[in-house]
């Protein structure tokens, strides 16, 4: 099971939960599973986030595999200069 961590900002959509465990083969399925648990979070994560899987920050990572024991964080999309 992947461990998905929520930032304080996202916890407003998870009823205060800081972490959940979810089995999902890729990021898209992970977001869909999270949206089932916390309706509305899927749109926020899909549109406004990059994802970090085991410390590696990825953009446009919809089809990125999520290993069984992965640590997953959703981050704000960053703008560089």
């Amino acid at each position, binding site marked *: 099971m992947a461990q998905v*961590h929520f*930032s*304080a*900002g996202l916890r*407003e*959509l998870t009823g205060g939960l800081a972490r959940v465990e979810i089995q999902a083969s890729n990021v898209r399925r992970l977001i869909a599973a999270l949206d089932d648990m916390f309706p509305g979070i899927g749109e926020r994560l899909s549109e406004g986030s990059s994802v*970090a899987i*085991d*410390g*590696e*920050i*990825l*953009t*446009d990572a919809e089809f990125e595999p999520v290993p069984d024991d992965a*640590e997953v*964080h*959703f*981050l*704000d999309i*960053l*703008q*560089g*200069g």
Partner: protein
Amino acid sequence: MAITEENPGYKWVGTRPIRPDGLDKVTGKAQFGADLTLPGMLFGKVVRSPHAHARILSIDTSAAESMLGVKAVITGSDFPDLAANGAHPMAIDVSHNAIARDKVLYEGHVVAAVAATTRELAEAAAKAVEVSYEVLPHVLTVDEAMADNAPLLHEGMITKGVEPAPDQPSNIASRIVHERGDLEQGFGEAEVVVEREFTTKPVHQGYIEPHAAVADANSDGRANIWCSSQGHFQMRADTASVLGVSQGTLKVTAAEIGGGFGGKTVIYLEPIAVRLSQRAGRPVKLVMDRDEVFRATGPTSGTRIKVKMGVSNDGKLTAAEVWMAFEAGAYAGSPVGAAGMTVIAAYDIPHFLVEGYDVVCNKPRVAAYRAPGAPMAAFAVESVLDELARSIDMDPIDLRLANAVVEGTQASYGPKFPRIGFVETLEAIKEHPNYTAELGPNQGRGVAAGFWFNAGMSSSATVHINENGTATVVTGSPDIGGSRQSMALMAAEELGIPYESIKPVVADTETVGFTDVTGGSRVTLATGAAVVDACRIVIEDLRARAAKTWDVEIDQVEWVDGQAQHVDGSQPPLSLNDLAAKSGRTGGPISANASLNARGVGAAFSTQVCDVEVDPETGVTQVIRYLTAQDAGRAISPDYVEGQMQGGVVQGIGWGLNEEYVHDENGNMENPSFLDYRMPVASDLPMIECCIVEVPNPAHPYGVRGVGEVGIVPPMAALGNAIKDATGVRLTDLPMTPIKVLEALNEQSD
């Protein structure tokens, strides 16, 4: 000095050859945005709002249109209403920022544009456009914008990130928060707690080349655009969105670019030029002057930041509480999100709360500026760290070493850090002679550090092998920091041929695959990885052709030092030249493409120490010594890496000591020129000494991290800490001008 974990024996990577763009630039042959002239070309001029906030009641273009030689006049009504089309809010903001519709939100906001046969006629026609305004009250700072009953820029703006959502609109676009542990417990464990409040002013990226665009629209709906930008694919996408056309109808060619630093990731002139060209049926050139650049293009945010931090007597940070408000300018989108993620990211602090607000106000929409958001945040936190170190009588680098994040530390913004080189930059500074150099009267020393994520994103590259065995490396990354040289160096290393045999080229949007902007310190990593991939495809092809020539299996062929060699030496080697010359016989031209969404981004850290001398009679701060240590991962092109490090420091020195937007009571900028907006020049500065630290990024073929941004993060705090060391006064409001220094010294003596 460089710290290298291993010596891979590279032949080209890490060398300092002559830059490929150097000759054209010093001889004036390089074609910048304003240099292009087309047959029949018209000159455009933009009409801008003189008001910081006003409703547009009417625009009368008849007088301008009747002038002989005026070929087109356009207003916001000549562009599609994206809101009615259900476009994304950000796309609507981009469109309305390019040309106002019902309201102007800052001085300099575009309201109309003209195209005429001469520049002088275009200027006269622009003046003949009559705009009637209802002037509205304005807000210029986060304090004004967040005040109760503040005038609203956007009547429908409901703060995001607050639950439950507010029932009234405000100028606060969004709130971000990061939290861990128990603040009360953390501050309870501290022996010393320091709390300070900081303010910073908007500052401009200060690129030397003003924005420029030439558009040539065809009658079939297609258009060509030549412009100076950090990403011509981004220009294509945003221009197409504003015009309401398919991206495929636009071809964008990247001009040579005279600086960007984040500020040229935004469209301003491009859709205006295309629409004028469509209306006139002739090419149109638009070029901003410096006044327009200051009044109408994005600076970075002004901010107010409150920081409270606690430390134990043995130097362990126990808690941090940060509150930040960032000016976004006219539309939502300040870098407060990145500021919140970076503000304490360099340190392992068990208990923290970081809260930030994105606040709109009647100034130009902010644009990215090197490590957007991080420098202001670091000014605040690194100043407080200096206070904490003084309070417990600890060396400031030792304090940072005691709390520095390392591989495996859970970052304040979430994930665990991979291999990083922060500690190595701290140690490099501590071991350098500058750190213990003797100081004279009125002199002081300051240390500060900074963090930036760096980025990956999408890049493409094509490698062509020419008939004579030379290579052309084609990418879609505008070269603002030496990317052509770093691409050529990596290609030379891969192919095993001389650097001079490789020509790096930046191609237009129809000639190379999609490539994200040159920004986020990403090009050497991401576009570099695409170049390496393309070279490796080429090498596989070359091995196969050699195998065919020798009538052996491909696994009998190695590629070594630019030539195919049989593993047992039974065949005379075939050079790239040999294989290229006979490519027609072995399958045709040799060429390969690679496109990728880059993986393995490596974070960057910088530690800096500066010495200043403060004149107690004038308050003038002179930087007398400056050293910056930065983890580059691997310096592909050390000359350019040092240039990026020095450039970031110099811009930070300007931000810290001189630069600020000054507005009058009507919201009009009073210093829109380099005479009154004082950026540092060479004679103001000592040599910025560089220490490239190399802790290779294990996820990149050459260990690259990216170097363009983090260098601007520490300077303001380093300067403030040095002024404190020299004078005993702590300055918390940027820029730290002579007047402010004198006032602080006078208060101290009272």
